[in-house]
């Protein structure tokens, strides 16, 4: 094929464009351009200029995206319009991939802030797999796609939402409190685009369906859902459901004196085939962390601060996260001191690294408890209005994400190559992204 034959002319909304079939081939077969140049639609040579009845400014941006893989949006083009146009051409995925790069905690930059309508104190924020997120607030869950467009909220009619999780970009699982005398509550699967209830997860005890309150959630790559459950007749423990069939597959009843049904945090450990369950102060007077093996219904590891001598500065564990690579559990107290417990020893003690003594002097009036997250060897810890990033085997503080608006961070979540931080005031959340890789 000669070079001239490769050339293609467009008239988009009155403006002329010239490009090549090679450039347009970058759009892929499942796009407007892919179909347009399919042999079936025999574009006759007379059609030297192809007319497209769309916005020409956006076309220019998207054409550049196909040419270079970079997205450069002039200030005069509203995001929404660009997304609308990209959606027309079937190039939304291209826009999304060009928008931000692979996640790196040390290269994050604030890309957006979304202000909610509620006055503050959100329950949880969860990043979706494709860059969207959802924010739980009382009985409502607001769902945002990766363009940060809000979809129909999920409204639970006065039941308080305890935790949220994404099954995939289309489906969200909610765990909610049971309402006395109504028999509802528990766990449900909702559509992220329409907010409709798709499925309700049930708990059976001795072949009888029971109503329950669901707490913390976790998901395994084997399509299992774990949730801490509090049943009506004191059936406390961890329930397990199959993501595909929706059926309950297992239930780990809590042993006396060891809180599982009240857990603040669940974390599935794929390498160990275990579930980490952490029930922490102030929900309970003491902290309980355990690893459960569901195959033989065994608590394979546990730790608790019952009976441990209380230090003067009262270091209480506020969040915990298992780090399988270093065989330890990282915990954090209200002063953002990190502590480590060895997983290889049964009943080991916490090795605190009091690194941030300075913080204590300037505690805000309304503190939020620290939260922990782990992403590809980087440890994230939120405290007040900032998130610290720790790296390396000794967990050195390498970055701190802070923005002076919105007050303390009450929750944050990493997913879809983005970090979402929910502030306690005004229900505002920040979106942190890694910029696309440099040109050279």
């Amino acid at each position, binding site marked *: 094929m000669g070079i001239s034959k490769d050339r293609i002319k467009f008239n988009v909304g009155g403006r002329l464009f010239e490009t090549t079939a090679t450039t347009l081939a970058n759009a892929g077969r499942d796009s407007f351009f892919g179909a*347009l140049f399919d042999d079936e*639609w025999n574009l006759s040579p007379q059609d030297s200029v192809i007319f497209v*009845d769309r916005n020409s400014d956006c076309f220019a941006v998207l054409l550049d995206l196909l040419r270079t893989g970079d997205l450069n949006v002039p200030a005069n083009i509203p995001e929404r319009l660009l997304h609308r146009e990209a*959606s027309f051409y*079937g190039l939304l995925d291209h826009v999304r991939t060009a928008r931000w790069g692979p996640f790196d905690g040390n290269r994050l930059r604030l890309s957006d802030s979304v202000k909610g309508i509620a006055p503050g104190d959100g329950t949880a924020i969860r990043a979706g797999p494709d860059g969207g997120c959802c924010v739980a607030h009382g009985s409502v869950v607001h769902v945002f796609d990766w363009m940060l467009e809000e979809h129909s909220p999920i409204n639970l009619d006065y039941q308080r939402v305890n935790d949220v999780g994404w099954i995939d970009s289309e489906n969200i699982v909610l765990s909610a409190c049971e309402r006395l005398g109504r028999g509802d509550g528990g766990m449900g699967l909702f559509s992220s*685009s329409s907010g409709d209830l798709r499925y309700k997860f049930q708990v059976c005890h001795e072949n009888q369906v029971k109503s329950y309150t669901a707490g913390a959630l976790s998901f395994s790559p084997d399509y299992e859902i774990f949730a801490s459950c509090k049943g009506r007749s004191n059936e406390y423990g961890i329930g397990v459901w199959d993501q595909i069939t929706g059926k309950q597959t297992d239930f780990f009843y809590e042993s006396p004196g060891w809180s599982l049904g009240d857990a603040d945090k669940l974390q599935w450990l794929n390498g160990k085939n275990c579930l980490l369950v952490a029930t922490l102060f102030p929900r309970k007077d003491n902290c309980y962390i355990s690893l459960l093996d569901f195959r033989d219904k065994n608590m394979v590891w546990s730790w608790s601060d019952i009976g441990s001598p209380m230090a003067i500065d009262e270091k209480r564990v506020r969040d915990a996260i298992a780090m399988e690579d270093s065989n330890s559990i990282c915990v954090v107290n209200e002063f953002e001191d990190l502590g480590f417990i060895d997983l290889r020893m049964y009943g080991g003690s916490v090795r605190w690294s009091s690194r941030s003594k300075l913080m204590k002097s300037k505690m805000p009036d309304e503190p939020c408890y620290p939260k922990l997250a782990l992403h590809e060897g980087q440890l994230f810890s939120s405290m007040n209005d900032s998130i610290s990033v720790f790296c390396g085997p000794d967990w050195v503080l390498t970055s701190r994400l802070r923005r002076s608006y919105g007050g303390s961070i009450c929750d944050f979540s990493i997913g879809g190559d983005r970090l979402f931080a929910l502030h306690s005031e005004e229900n505002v959340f920040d979106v942190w992204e890694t910029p696309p890789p440099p040109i050279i």
Partner: protein
Amino acid sequence: MEQKILVRDQESSSSPSSSFFFFYLCSSTFKNLFTEAKNTIPNPNPIIPLSPVSKMSNQKKRNFQIEAFKHRVVVDPKYADKTWQILERAIHQIYNQDASGLSFEELYRNAYNMVLHKFGEKLYSGFIATMTAHLKEKSKLIEAAQGGSFLEELNKKWNEHNKALEMIRDILMYMDRTYIESTKKTHVHPMGLNLWRDNVVHFPKIHTRLLNTLLDLVQKERTGEVIDRGLMRNVIKMFMDLGESVYQEDFEKPFLEASSEFYKVESQEFIESCDCGDYLKKAEKRLTEEIDRVAHYLDPKSEEKITSVVEKEMIANHMQRLVHMENSGLVNMLLNDKYEDLGRMYNLFRRVTNGLLTVRDVMTSHLREMGKQLVTDPEKSKDPVEYVQRLLDERDKYDKVINTAFGNDKTFQNALNSSFEYFINLNARSPEFISLFVDDKLRKGLKGITDVDVEVILDKVMMLFRYLQEKDVFEKYYKQHLAKRLLSGKTVSDDAERSLIVKLKTECGYQFTSKLEGMFTDMKTSEDTMRGFYGSHPELSEGPTLIVQVLTTGSWPTQPAVPCNLPAEVSVLCEKFRSYYLGTHTGRRLSWQTNMGTADIKAVFGKGQKHELNVSTFQMCVLMLFNNSDRLSYKEIEQATEIPAPDLKRCLQSLACVKGKNVIKKEPMSKDIGEEDSFFVNDKFTSKFYKVKIGTVVAQKETEPEKQETRQRVEEDRKPQIEAAIVRIMKSRKILDHNNIIAEVTKQLQPRFLANPTEIKKRIESLIERDFLERDSTDRKLYRYLA
């Protein structure tokens, strides 16, 4: 086209057409624009999105009315219908292959707009309805196709549909990506396939006809006709494209059933008319045909299923009959070395459960039967060498069968081994014969054969040796035969001898061969001793030469020393040697084994012919007597030599009665030696050779009493071994019951011989008597070890 722009009627808001979302400014110019642009959607500005109607309250309606007065908002309720009509017409054109005039951009944009303006549902259901209508039309055309053109028509229409579906999907791409995604409906492409399946493939008048046509074609191909495989492949590919379940339900299952029926009938025909080899050839051909068929036009996943049908119908169901078929079954193939047929049988039978088991069982029973005849036939066991050679030949043959036809299958090798083990031990003389075979080979058979070949023969012998249960009996015989070989200097190759000993050692351990090796050492030491003897007696270089081999008692097979009177010349030498030997070694005792010696004598006969006679010691004693007298009677000889009568008789027989070697004559002339016979030198003795070897008339095989004796000796030797085993086991176990002890002892002694339970019991009793063991006081079946 007449278009109306209506002022929105408040009262009609409850009618279905009230769910539109667009309002247009009403103006007369607008109307013109609208009627002119027939195929494009009017795109008036501004577009005012509004909240869904259902949320409007009466209160808001009133407010709206006031605004309407200002703006005069007009809407087009037919908007969606019109857009859809454009798309519908395009779909028609695509199906009618008249798409060249269509503008993709326009159609794409229209479909996009419909979805954008929340008419996704209308677009989706419209597309389904239009496509369904088209497919119904097509199915009628396909149905109308006559005879052979039916499949072609179907294939043509299918290709058209695929092409159209592709284009329709292109147009509806935006709907596919957004509306269908969020409502979880079936995507356009799979939906198009489903519609084809429901309206064409499952159309009652096509469904069975299609299946029958396909099955007919397969049937035709099976009977040798050439069919259009390309068309076949395309149609089958259609089933596969429609989904695995469609392929399986609508084609594969009936196909397998029909095949099963076909092969059931055919295999019945074949088995009545063909012999086993031919049948297998046909079955193999059918199998490759089916595999070929799968490769050409079926789903690769069907291969396993169709081959299992053929396997079941053609092989599994006729397995027994095939194997046992008279004059052509497995036994016949084995007898006639039909390696190709055997290989075919193996490869086919391997495919079915218990197939190989059947083959193996028949082979084993045939082998055992054949082997049993071989070893028990008294005719065949007359010649030990022949007997062993036959065993080796059989073994070689079956080795080859397993190697070439049965893919060196381990289980077959095991079956072969166990069969040989079974029948070799049926003949109690097998150990002796094998030893004799070795003896024969090492005496003379190995001349002119390379070392490699020697190894091969020895290895084969070892294989037979492995089958023996009574390895100690073999050892006994082997010792005797080796002794004879060594002493008579008849062993051909020292290397070959040692090589076999090494093999036996690896097989049975040091213990087994230590005595055999001792024999070799004795031979070597004797050489040194002789050198020393003649070195210290230089005066002996004159006169007769004496060569003595000193044998250690125990290492060699014990034979009663038969005394005889040696000629004076020799006995003087013997005495000298005795004093030399006892002088150099202390605490030893020498006894002469005259029955095992040989002598070379120089003799001059009547006409001056000189010969060197190679004779046994006994013969030498007899011949020497004739130096002093011409004629001697049997009695005189017996008296002078004191050789025991049977030995003397044999010795005289070989001197006087063997033609060509009769150095003495006897009277009367007869074959046997009588007590009254008299002997004289045969002056007329002639021979072509200077050296004449006079053998002793002796059967190579053992005589009956000798056999008994060997047996007895073996039994005697076993006793301490059994006892040692019992003690070893009891030492570690301390307490053991009777049955277990028998089992363990038998197991421990297996490599050497098969211990007889009664003998073990006797040994236990003997050990109890000697206070090595005791019976448990409460349970008489329990034995206790006494330290």
